[in-house]
């Protein structure tokens, strides 16, 4: 086998190791394992690095445990706004989207920007129009709802505080 490698991350400021229940620990590890195994399998089969990162991130977006795609946290308005980017190290081509709502897999939209746009970064309604024009999947608000994330948001929504991923203790204002 030629040299292949993949690495993934599931965020920062997520639940700290000491506060994970055994069930949560198992679930997070399973989610990471699934994504990295799928990406590695694609690479081992001769797939491209671009396809591998696309696949791994898509799987993580589909897993509500992680703050992206389906598991995205709530905004001040109680909505979900997502950002994504992808870049090819061979061609230096890149695609990115910011502030998109209801797009099921923002990384797919970023990939579409890379492949089908003369631009690098699209945002908001325009990016969503681009997604529709390229047949990307949308999902209703209910798809992005998660009771734990709703509870987190409920605790701070009447304040100016915003939190990194699952941050457990609100003790600072950032930005």
């Amino acid at each position, binding site marked *: 086998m030629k040299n292949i*490698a993949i*690495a993934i*991350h599931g965020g920062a400021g*997520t639940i700290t190791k000491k506060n994970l229940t055994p069930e949560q620990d198992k679930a997070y590890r399973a989610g990471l394992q699934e994504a*990295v195994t799928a990406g590695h399998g694609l690479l081992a089969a001769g797939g491209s690095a671009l396809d591998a990162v696309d696949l791994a991130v898509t799987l993580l977006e589909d897993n509500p445990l992680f703050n*992206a795609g389906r598991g995205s946290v709530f905004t001040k308005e109680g909505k979900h706004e997502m950002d994504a980017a992808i870049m*090819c190290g061979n061609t*230096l081509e890149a695609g990115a989207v910011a502030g998109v709502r209801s797009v099921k897999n923002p990384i797919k939209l970023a990939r579409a920007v890379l492949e089908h746009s003369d631009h690098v970064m699209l945002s908001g309604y325009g990016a969503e129009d681009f997604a529709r024009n390229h047949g990307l999947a949308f999902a209703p608000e209910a798809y992005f709802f998660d009771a734990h994330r709703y509870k987190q*948001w409920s605790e701070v929504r009447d304040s100016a505080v915003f939190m990194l991923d699952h941050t457990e203790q609100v003790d600072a204002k950032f930005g």
Partner: protein
Amino acid sequence: TVGAVALDQNGHTAAATSTGGMTNKNYNRIGDTPIIGAGTYANNATCAISCTGHGEYFMRAVVAYDVSCLIEYKGLSLQQACDEVVMQKLVRFGGEGGLIALNKAGEVVLSFNSEGMYRASKKNGEPTFVGIYR
């Protein structure tokens, strides 16, 4: 935030990052994830990087491209460049978070300075590594 970096059999690298942002964010705040060079960057000549953390700090420090520049212009190794940016520069900025990086040689670096970092990697036929830190 989630992300991935990869090296394929042709020696090409890629990076991807996706995020739901920060809980209770307002005014269409956007972090570093979609900003090429801040949160995501890939260049076969240097490295592929995906970042996670307080985006505002990653934007100010232009983290991903800074790592690449340290390799390209200063000749640092991938590990040295990541440590310099995440453990030194980013800390000086006050930024929490980290990154995953790899290069064309298949070296993988997981560098972070905060709690609650979830990581996994797999190289060639080696066993899969899954880690949840601190």
